[in-house]
């Protein structure tokens, strides 16, 4: 497997040289391999948004480098636009950025800018809409007539239609009801599975990160604090709490069971695995009791 995103000693300062200069990222280094689904967590102001807006060249490192698919983003600054298509970025509350009079046109906006022909644009719009679960009839509607959750799916489809190699989403489920969360994140996961592209998901929900990500990157006060597999990250509950974060509720239940004196693994962070673990432990207990 090769690295899709390489971040090398990335430091970023807002308003450098001014009295209000703020270092938002401080010597951050890591690699994300092609095809991985990486979750990013960290308290407000830890640098998550600043970090991910570097992936498509919206910010230029104050020092350090970013490589996408082996190519240094800022090697040829005049080519930076290419990375806007290569790395699809879905901002927080992206529905506020819809502006065309039909959903179709909104989703087509990116592909059009890429200079694709009408037939290819049409194929991409329909495919992207399908992925996020927007019906063909909705495509001709004005986005402003749609519900908040639907609007957000239009915005995400607009990014998918550019067929990026990396999909980056900043809190895509914020403010949605539980079903809306599942629909959007489920669509992202299905897209990830179907296309094998690299996905980076920023979220404040430990439950969502546990459910969808393979690896977790934890930011703390401008620095990279932890970067590891999901189970290894959520196994560090005390450290996460210290960083203003948390572990999934289901993990808390297991930690409490352990505290109560039960001999049970606590590296449990999803519901199906929790049920399986308990079932096994209970059967073992029953076996012991019968002996």
């Amino acid at each position, binding site marked *: 497997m090769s690295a899709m995103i390489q971040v090398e000693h990335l430091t970023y300062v807002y308003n450098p040289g001014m009295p209000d200069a703020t270092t938002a990222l401080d010597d951050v280094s890591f690699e994300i391999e092609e095809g991985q689904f990486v979750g990013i967590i*960290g*308290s*407000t*102001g830890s640098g998550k948004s600043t970090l991910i807006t570097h992936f498509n060249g919206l910010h230029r490192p104050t020092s350090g480098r970013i490589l996408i698919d082996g190519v240094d983003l800022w090697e040829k600054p005049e080519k930076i636009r290419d990375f806007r298509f290569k790395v699809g970025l879905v901002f927080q509350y992206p529905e506020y950025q819809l502006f065309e009079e039909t959903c179709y046109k909104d989703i087509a906006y990116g592909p059009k800018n890429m200079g694709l022909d009408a037939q290819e644009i049409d194929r991409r719009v329909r495919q992207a809409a399908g992925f996020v679960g927007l019906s063909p009839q909705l495509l001709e509607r004005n986005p402003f007539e749609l*519900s*908040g*959750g639907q609007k957000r799916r239009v915005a995400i489809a607009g990014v998918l239609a550019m067929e990026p190699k990396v999909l980056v989403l900043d809190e895509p489920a*914020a*403010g*949605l*009801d*539980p*079903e*809306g*969360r599942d629909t959007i994140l489920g669509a992202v996961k299905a897209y990830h599975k179907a296309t094998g592209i690299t996905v980076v998901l920023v979220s*404040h929900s*430990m*439950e969502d990160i546990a459910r969808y990500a393979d690896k977790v990157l934890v930011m703390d006060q401008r620095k990279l604090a932890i970067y590891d597999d999901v189970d290894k990250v959520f196994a560090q509950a005390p450290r996460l709490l210290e960083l*203003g*974060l*948390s572990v*999934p*509720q*289901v993990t*808390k*239940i297991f930690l*409490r*069971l352990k505290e*109560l004196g*039960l001999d049970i693994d606590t590296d449990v962070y999803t*519901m199906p695995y*929790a*049920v399986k673990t*308990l*079932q096994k*432990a*209970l059967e073992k*207990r029953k076996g012991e009791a019968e002996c």
Partner: protein
Amino acid sequence: MSKMIDADQIRFRYDPEVDNWAVDGASLKVEKGEFVAVLGANGCGKSTLAKHLNAILLPEAGTVLVEEMDTKDEEQLFQIRQTVGMVFQNPDNQIVATVVEEDVAFALENLGVPSDQIRQRIDQAMKMAGIYQHRNKAPHKLSGGQKQRVAIAGVIAMRPDCLVLDEATAMLDPRGREVVMDTIRTLNREYGITVVAITHYMEEAAQADRVVVMNGGKVVLEGTPAQVFSQADLLREYHLDVPQATELRDELVKLGYDLPQGIISIEECAQAIYKLFQ
């Protein structure tokens, strides 16, 4: 004793020409000192209902009484707005001043409250909201949870009897959500402030005295958190969910294990599972 809020059969639509009701015959009664959580899918009318509770919106049909004052009675408007304070989702849109304590004092100054009284009221409000130690900081330097508590302090400086929070934790990180929820619980339990909290987080609703579920502009389900969350299938029909503690209990019951109904917290769930092993 009079109710804090008595909204009866209210209907509201944004366009009076179109037969499309954002709130369609919803009733909400809240006792003084109660902590009520309101759940419901996006667009089901929660915010519209909330805006009726301090006369930002007036019902087209039905009545809203706030401590027996009718929100349609213009003469009572000032008193109603003093009685019910609102906190919204985005803390950045609610903060106006460049120093925390100035922001908390803002509304009081606008009302012409004498300055010695202002000092005392804002100090108390900032302490109640747990933000006193940050009183001299710039709001934009605070975390999301701290900013939201500044907004709460600004509202409680008005000494409302009732606080309505419209997804006040939606934009916060886990710690921010926790401290804001702790603050709300303290205001409710220790200061007797009535709380109506709209949320999409089931585990937050589990901390309320009572849960009200809305769907399609109506109240469709109501009860203690334990009663409401024991109806997982019905909740899913309303695009909602149950806390993970409840879900784990339900999954184990499906496998034939015997766990009591009404489990909604981590502690209750852990205790019940622990018993299975004894």
